[in-house]
């Protein structure tokens, strides 16, 4: 009953524009298409498995840790020893409820667990405990934004409907040793709590899917319900992709699996949309199949996975999990039945009160409070710790937020990215940057010098902006006599330019100003220099 996987190969150099039909490798449209006004467009739905950030597994007391020695985090239950029973981890339920609330879901007061059966070496019980009939949260919305326009300054808000969030067990890991034709099993991951989020096919391309996933990632990280690291498998995305003409029924879909970064997600989806459009344009039909992208090996390994839900719902032989009573969550403390300890129960109201500031709210607040551009708010929120850094700098300087933002999103972030550092690893602390900006703001250094000082501070952590300015004699020259003499020298040695200015070409003055700054290594007070030069060339 298993189905072979067609491995999808992506050429990273392949650039796909999904709106146009004439990408390389696609034959020209036949007559039918020429006469059809509407073009084929992609339809994308997502199934996302988010590993719950909890210290122990969903139904057992063993620890959850990434990259622990194989089979070192396995309880009797995780290994499915006969006679063991599942005991639900409250933390995992709270995480799912919190995530549901953050995504505007209805929280089911009563939800149920089911067994989903399939034989696979890393599924020791022969079934996965999941929530097929009645999941913990349903019917929510994720709002995400696309930045469009040349400068990516146009913010387009979009919604994707969340069908449900269900709690379920993760499986173990199989390592196939083809040389010795054996399979090695690591059960450390077996039984870790997952939230499966099902997003309706409301997206139309890789970029939208990627933006939705990125927003979800930020939300989960803000909530602390999932660490969201895709490369460590904490967030796993499967995409259901089909194409159709708007207004017509959806086409046959394929499932794209094994995507471990947001970037690859966008590529894989766009590639798949193009592939399907190509097939239809050649008069072919799209097959319902699973296509897996393997970025690690980049090799063709034929291997069978438990087949997709669509093709084999019957195969899974769902059954209610008889060892777990219905999961009940309570609206508030008042609705708790007598004899139930509030500390032992999952109370929605309490979780609602504990919700942190969500990314979209945070961005709006940043734009409103500091008057920065929306795209800057995206940059700030996208980088873990950058908002806090920005706000800490503002606390220590009188400089306007709109003037600080460039320093944070360009200088600081640029340097961090170049060296692949996180914000917390920055060699320049927020107060240190604030001090530098203060020197500039109070006229002690020019803006060009400030950038030099920033680079020197980056290379010699611990030294203050003032120390560096002093050591390298970078302070602003505002001695009028000294500036007069330098300006005179420049004017004297550039008679042609002076002539041009006198003839009305005022722009040439800037060239002279640049020469003065070159002479002073950028330390001259620009206002003063301009005034002196204007006098001397008038």
């Amino acid at each position, binding site marked *: 009953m298993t189905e072979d996987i067609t491995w999808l190969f992506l050429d990273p150099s392949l650039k796909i524009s999904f709106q146009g039909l004439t990408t390389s490798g696609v034959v020209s449209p036949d007559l039918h298409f020429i006469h059809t006004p509407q073009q084929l467009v992609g339809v994308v739905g997502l199934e996302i498995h988010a590993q719950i950030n909890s210290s122990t597994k969903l139904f057992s007391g063993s620890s959850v840790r990434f990259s622990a020695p194989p089979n070192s985090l396995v309880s*009797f239950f995780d*290994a*499915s*020893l*006969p*006679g*063991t*029973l*599942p*005991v*639900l981890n409250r933390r995992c339920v709270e995480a799912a409820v919190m995530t549901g609330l953050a995504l505007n879901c209805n929280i089911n007061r009563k939800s149920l667990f089911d*067994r989903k*059966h399939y*034989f696979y*070496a890393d599924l*020791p*019980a*022969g*079934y996965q405990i999941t929530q097929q009939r009645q999941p913990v949260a349903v019917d929510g919305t994720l709002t995400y934004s696309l930045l469009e326009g040349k400068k990516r300054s146009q913010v387009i808000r979009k919604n994707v409907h969340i069908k449900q969030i269900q709690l379920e067990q993760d499986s173990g890991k199989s390592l196939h040793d083809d040389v010795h034709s054996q*399979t090695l*099993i690591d059960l450390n991951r077996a039984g870790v709590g997952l939230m499966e989020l099902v997003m309706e096919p409301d997206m139309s391309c890789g970029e939208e899917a990627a933006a939705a996933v990125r927003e979800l990632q930020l939300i989960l990280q803000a909530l602390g319900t999932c660490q969201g690291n895709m490369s460590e498998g904490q967030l796993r995305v499967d995409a259901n992709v089909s194409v159709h003409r708007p207004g017509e029924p959806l086409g046959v879909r394929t499932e794209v699996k094994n995507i471990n970064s947001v970037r690859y997600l966008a590529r894989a989806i766009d590639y798949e949309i193009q592939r399907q459009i190509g097939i239809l344009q050649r008069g072919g039909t799209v097959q319902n199949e699973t296509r897996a992208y393997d970025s690690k090996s980049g090799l063709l390994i034929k291997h069978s996975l438990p087949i997709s839900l669509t093709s084999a*719902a*019957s195969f899974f*032989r*769902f*059954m209610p999990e*008889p*060892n*777990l*009573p219905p999961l009940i969550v309570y609206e508030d403390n008042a609705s708790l039945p007598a004899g139930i300890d509030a500390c032992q129960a999952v109370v929605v109201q309490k979780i609602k009160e504990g919700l942190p500031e969500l990314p979209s709210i945070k961005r709006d607040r940043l734009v409103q409070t500091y008057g920065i551009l929306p795209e800057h708010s995206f940059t700030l929120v996208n980088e873990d710790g950058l908002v806090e850094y920005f706000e800490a700098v503002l606390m220590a300087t009188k400089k306007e937020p709109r003037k600080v933002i460039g320093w944070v999103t360009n200088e600081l972030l640029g340097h961090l990215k170049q060296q692949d550092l996180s914000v917390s690893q920055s060699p320049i602390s927020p107060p240190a940057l604030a001090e530098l900006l203060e020197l500039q703001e109070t006229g002690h250094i020019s803006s060009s010098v400030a950038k030099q000082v920033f680079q020197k501070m980056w290379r010699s952590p611990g030294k203050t902006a003032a120390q560096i300015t002093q050591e390298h004699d970078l302070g602003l020259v505002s001695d009028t006599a000294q500036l007069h003499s330098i300006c005179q020298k420049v004017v004297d040695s550039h008679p042609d330019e002076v002539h041009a200015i006198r003839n009305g070409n005022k722009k040439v003055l800037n060239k002279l100003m640049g020469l003065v700054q070159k002479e002073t290594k950028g330390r001259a007070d620009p206002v003063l220099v301009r005034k002196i030069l204007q006098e001397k060339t008038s």
Partner: protein
Amino acid sequence: MLGLFFLGVSLALREGRISPTELCKKCLNRIKKTQHLNAYITVTEESALKQAQQSEVRLLKGVPKGPLDGIPFAVKDNFCTKNIKTTCASKMLKDYTPPYNATVVQKLLDQGAVLMGKANLDEFAMGAGCTDGAFGPVKNPWSYAAPYREQTGAMLESDWAITGGSSGGSAAAVASLTSYLALGSDTGGSTRNPGALCGVVALKPTYGLLSRHGLIPLVNSMDVPGIMARSVNDAAIVLGILQGLDVRDSTTVPAPSPLTELPQDFDVKNICVGIPKEYHAPGLSEETLAQWSRVADLFERAGAQVKQVSLPHTQYSIVCYHVLCHAEVASNMARFDGLEYGHRSQIDSSTEVMYASTRHEGFNDVVRGRILSGNYFLLKQNYQHYFVKAQKVRRLIADDFRNVFGSGVDVLLTPTTLSDAACYQDFTQEDNRTRSAQEDVFTQPANMAGLPAVSVPTALSRRGLPIGLQLIGPALHDKKLLSVAQWIEQRVGFPSISDWDYSRESRNDTAVTKREQTSAV
């Protein structure tokens, strides 16, 4: 000494009339003498003697752990026992040694009770005869006792009767006086059925009152650890120890009250005994029917209200039971794939082939048959038609009981089985499925509804084999149920097997006797 109840033996132990070690050795000896019964799969002689010795130290110091300190017990071999093989009478787990104790086993050990061994059963508890295990059938001790031999004229070795099942080993262990109590499991009658056929008290408590943690499941939504004992009071003492919430089993409920000893002078004047008319089933033996009437009359004469009641959906119960049972079996057996533990086939050309051959070699026909039909019931296209429908009928059956108990009935009195124990040769004329459907007919409705039920031996049949009657009570009224059961026990005068010598030495079968004596050193 071996024929005593807890209170007697416990007193003897405390007064030093016998030491736990002496008692343990007596039981071990008897196990050897009754080896032909095949009641035990594993006899834990070494650890039993060690436990007995530790108990002896406590008793000498005058600090026993409780009423069970030093008392020998047996455990059905589908309860996990730490470092002791737990086979489920299956090739699949023939060499499986669990790393932990089932909660109910641990609770008995914590009381100082001495584990004698693991009792035989039908493979994975699937059966009603204890004839379908990988280690051979269990023989009914009563079929070696004088009444049966004399009254049936049984002469041949092959003339033995079955114990019933699936907890036949546990029933035989208690009936043959090699253990004072035994744990069974009861999914459709697996404790009560052999209890009735072997003449011991067999309690199936309310679902959820006892932890299933460590009980290798048959049907999770119906399984209950069962208690087999010599007397109703013994069963009550054990229930008091085992009942209550277990954090490792989310389906457990808190005990309604700490169960102290049963009142010795329970008055039945104010109780109402229901006689469900649907239990006059085809195949009910004349003698069992006579016992049923006799006890009903006893109640009536004592002033209890006895009335006929109706449980209209009873006739659908057994077929729905089988649908639900097979579906859960299919699911529960999925873990036995030969990877983590248990039997693994040598045929391993691919993972799928290894799974298939492992499961083919490891499970008997009965288990494989139930897996196949269970998976069929769970197929998407069949699920509504079989599984969901069976669950709906299950609800109707539970409602039947609720209605009856809601109308003022305190307990229901029914037969436990259709008749006394069949001869092995007769029993095996029919297949396991047919037998299970016949034998569980009176017992499985209580499992469908999660209700407490107890089988009490009432008399020996004309063939000299025990007949038992069943009481069913409302959920969590286990204590009241036992009080009524004890009232019956006090009046029916069921004989003790120790009144006769039933070991094989009593018969003129010298060859067998000699062989057993050599192995019994």
